[in-house]
């Protein structure tokens, strides 16, 4: 069975916590272990950070899908459509961020070629929750 949850957030530093909370809730309900949930919380945070710079405005569109033991999260940055903030913002794909993602998830990637850059991750459940 596949479940899909979508979350649309304004690009604001104080709202990234909602992306983490949603990931943790979905992972918990999917039977992920405590450590795996913490890994996913940090990974989705880094996913969001990888798409937006400090001056970004617009929205982050997150999609969480669960299929049996796998959770996939994609995050798309949608710039403002009014043209007021259409400057190119360098994504914050820092070396630290990449190392964290590499260590915490099974797969991750990004597609920054279009107008709406997207990053995604996939994590498989290994340990059942106690």
């Amino acid at each position: 069975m596949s479940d899909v949850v979508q979350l649309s957030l304004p690009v604001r530093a104080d709202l990234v916590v909602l992306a983490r909370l949603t990931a943790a809730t979905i992972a918990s309900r999917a039977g992920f272990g405590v450590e795996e949930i913490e890994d996913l919380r940090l990974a989705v945070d880094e996913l969001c950070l990888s798409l937006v710079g400090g001056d970004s405005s617009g929205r982050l569109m997150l999609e969480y899908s669960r299929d049996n033991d796998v959770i996939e999260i994609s995050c798309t940055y949608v710039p403002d459509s009014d043209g007021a903030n259409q400057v190119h913002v360098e994504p914050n794909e820092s070396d630290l961020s990449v190392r964290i993602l590499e260590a915490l998830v099974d797969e991750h990637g990004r597609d920054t070629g279009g107008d709406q850059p997207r990053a995604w991750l996939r994590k498989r459940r290994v340990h059942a929750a106690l």
Partner: protein
Amino acid sequence: MDQTFDIAEQTIDGVPVVSVTGEIDVATAPGLREHLQALVASGSSTIVVDLLNVSFLDSTALGVLVGVLKRCREAGGDLRLVVAEPRILKVFEITGLTEVFSIYPVVAEATAG
């Protein structure tokens, strides 16, 4: 968020100890950077950052700590961290920063150096 973000400071054996509570992320890291940079600017070259009550920390937080570490070392001092929670220590380990920072399990050991 299970804890409200807070920064407290005390001096132990002449070393400033900055104790952080809560989550250090893109929203709260700038406040920590400002606090630590002000300490360095005021002449403190060695600082202890107590992360015992930190429940979450991301690459933004690591970037702040690395930046302040550089400034401390340029001034002839060090930035020492206090970390005991395995999931916080794990973030330093997977990024290779356990080789960069001096990390202690308790504040007393960090202030003693």
